[in-house]
């Protein structure tokens, strides 16, 4: 449209063009949390986007300096509230790194099972909300119906559906209840054909494909330069997955693929996450088969006091790589805990992606970044 305007101006016609500033405010059905986007428009085309964060800033890092290491586990639940198991695991792992603490093998397997189930739950929610963003309300209810089953499994294990606080330094809080393995296997058997149903319903729907293919493509070099991680990075063609490239916990014992996209557009990001659900189910069934007997938590001292030092550790969250940077001075409370949130770094890409697109694509692109504002703002 600007080309036509320039031509007209060159031809000597007087055209007055106004840039319109549209505020996609903090309260909006589609911003997946409290995010404010200031969008500069020229007609229907977006010139610039100015995200405004901080609506959910709760000062987690500052609070962490005043809590002891056990209490911070509960803080980490609330950041990316959709992937609490992964958040917990990253935090306890960084503390265990400083303490040089051994974790019993059974606890490691249980951690893997919980993390992968949480990945499934998180991606199911993404699937549902992305459908709603696109206007298809039905996948939302199907996704949540399956998610309820996963949350029931979590409730069985730790009593909570969302903010689990299940991990402990040295293992997990409690052993798996009896009957959990059977229920989990039943869920996996039930779930895998359902993902095929989702493909039929939304993935290969021509209208959906029309709205997501080719929109908001993030190139490989831009993704690496921005420090994007997780499904967004893999959709752009970089097969970097911490579980495969730098296996932590017992991930090196499982066979699974890392779904990678080609173009980095919205459809690829969506498709990578759907495939990841299938891979997570594979991992869970392998882990259930290989679950060794043993203790669920190693013996640690009553007051956790890591030696002075610092450590940095990353885990693969459903949204990307969640990093914990811990500086300890030998006290029962950390000196500094920094959380490197994947959604925060991923969201930086948004203004670049949206340049030149139309208003109707904002929701498609924003939904495909799959951010959680609790993590962006901490």
């Amino acid at each position, binding site marked *: 449209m600007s080309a036509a305007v320039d031509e007209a101006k060159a031809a000597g016609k007087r055209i007055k063009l106004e840039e319109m500033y549209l505020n996609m405010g903090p309260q909006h059905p589609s911003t997946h949390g409290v995010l404010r986007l200031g969008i500069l428009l020229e007609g229907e085309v977006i010139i610039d986007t100015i995200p405004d964060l*901080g609506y959910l800033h709760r000062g987690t890092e500052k609070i962490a300096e005043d809590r002891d290491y056990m209490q911070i586990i509960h803080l980490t639940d609330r950041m990316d509230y959709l992937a609490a198991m992964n958040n917990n695991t990253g935090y306890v792992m960084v503390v265990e790194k400083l303490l040089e603490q051994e974790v019993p093998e059974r606890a490691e397997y249980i951690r893997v099972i919980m993390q992968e189930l949480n990945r499934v739950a998180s991606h199911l929610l993404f699937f549902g909300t992305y459908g709603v963003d696109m206007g298809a309300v039905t996948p939302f209810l199907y996704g949540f119906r399956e998610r309820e089953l996963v949350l029931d499994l979590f409730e069985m294990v730790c009593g909570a559906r969302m903010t689990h606080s299940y991990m402990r330094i040295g293992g997990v809080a409690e052993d798996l209840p009896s009957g959990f393995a059977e229920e989990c296997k039943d869920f996996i058997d039930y779930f895998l054909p359902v993902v095929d149903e989702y493909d039929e319903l939304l993935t290969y729907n021509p209208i959906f494909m029309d709205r997501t293919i080719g929109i908001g493509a993030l190139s490989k070099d831009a993704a690496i*330069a921005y*420090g994007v991680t997780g499904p967004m990075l893999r959709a752009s063609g970089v097969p970097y997955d911490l579980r495969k490239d730098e296996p932590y916990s017992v991930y090196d014992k499982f066979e699974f693929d890392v779904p990678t996209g080609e173009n980095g557009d919205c459809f690829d990001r969506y498709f990578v996450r759907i495939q990841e659900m299938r891979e997570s189910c594979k991992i869970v069934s392998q882990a259930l088969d290989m679950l060794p007997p043993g203790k669920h938590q190693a013996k640690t001292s009553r007051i956790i006091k890591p*030696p002075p030092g*610092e450590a*940095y550790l990353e885990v693969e969250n459903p949204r990307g790589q969640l*990093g914990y*940077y811990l500086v300890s001075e030998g006290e029962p409370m950390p000196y500094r805990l920094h959380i490197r949130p994947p959604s*925060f770094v991923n969201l*930086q890409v948004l203004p670049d992606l949206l340049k030149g697109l139309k208003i109707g694509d904002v929701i498609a692109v924003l939904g495909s970044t799959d951010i959680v504002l609790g993590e962006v703002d901490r």
Partner: protein
Amino acid sequence: MISEELVNALIENPAVSREEVEDVYRDSEFPVLMVEADAVGAVSEFLRDTEGYEFDFLKNLTAVDFEGHMHVVYHLYSTSLRHKIMLKVQVGREQPVVPSVEPVWRGADWQEREVFDLFGIEFAGHPDPRRIMLPEDWQGHPLRKDYVHEPDHYD
């Protein structure tokens, strides 16, 4: 794991030195190098562009507040060579300024804004040096150890 030769080659630069610590746990995956504040831009470009180093991925950028000084901390990774390194820049507490690495790694954009917002460290050359989490008219930098909150109209 980055090889010792590469680390030693870096230390030949007078602005870069090994961190001197004793009896403190250090992450073996991330060898720590101290960099002078003025040289940050040049060192970052060198680390990204030189063959053998190829640190194209900025994993993390944050700051730590100590008594009397502050550290800006960079965790770097190379997607091609799979090695990691950690840089630390020491700045004082009065008017700390560090050159921005946003021209080198675009991912530093918001992370530097967050450090400015919560610590008060200014990044010279940053394209958009505004607060990011806290409101524009907030006084003070909360993550500093000496921050005292005065009740304002947000309370």
